[in-house]
């Protein structure tokens, strides 16, 4: 029974992985691709690792997979944020249909304050 629950978790994770990579191919912009891919793939990989823990149980690889869940869930959003910030500062343009760009507005405000001083 616990094996079947683990396999269900692995199935959910596989579906999220595949949809995240499909978003990485199909979306029009760096930021859209980053959003789709990072969210879907992080949840997918965490789900696969949790399914591994359910199947293997409280043995050495099970505990290591729990540790790996914590690590992936902590580091993947940090890496995504750093990549988005670097891309915006490097001048990668947004998609034409984008509505709002708060980070550029913030930088303009900072420049205005510097010019006043």
């Amino acid at each position, binding site marked *: 029974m616990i094996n079947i629950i683990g396999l269900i978790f692995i199935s959910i994770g596989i579906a999220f*992985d595949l949809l995240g990579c499909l978003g990485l*191919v199909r979306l029009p912009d760096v930021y859209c691709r980053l959003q789709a891919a990072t969210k879907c793939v992080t949840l997918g*990989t965490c789900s696969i690792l949790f399914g591994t823990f359910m*199947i293997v149980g409280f043995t050495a*690889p099970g505990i290591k997979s729990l540790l*790996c869940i914590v690590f992936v869930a902590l580091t993947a959003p940090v*890496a995504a944020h*750093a990549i988005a910030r670097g891309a915006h*500062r*490097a001048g990668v343009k947004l998609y034409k249909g984008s509505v709002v760009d708060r980070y550029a507005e913030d930088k303009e405000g900072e420049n205005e304050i510097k010019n006043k001083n």
Partner: protein
Amino acid sequence: MKIFRWLIGAIILIGIFILIIIRPLPFLFYPDLPYIGFLGRVLYIIILACILCLYRVWRGPTGADRIVAIDILGIMIVGLCAVLTISTGRSWYIDIGIAWALQSFICALALSKYLEGKGFDD
């Protein structure tokens, strides 16, 4: 020319789908687990997702696309290592997964600093 490229991609995708349905990936079997066929198909689906990531590495218009794809590829390999841990019953695959996640994180941070145009020391 565009039709030619679409045709190549369609042939690769249809081939992988046929492989997923017909023939699970053969590997060293863990004898107590009765779900070998399902796990073999899971490995094929992860390989399909990795091929989609490699397409984005190949055709990325800017450098940021390639960096995003490499980061996602690293996270995907961790899932592959977890599935291999179950299916072969050898516990050192998950060690490779942990080490790969750490390396991928450091690689993404370094490449984003490079993209930002600064040096690595500040």
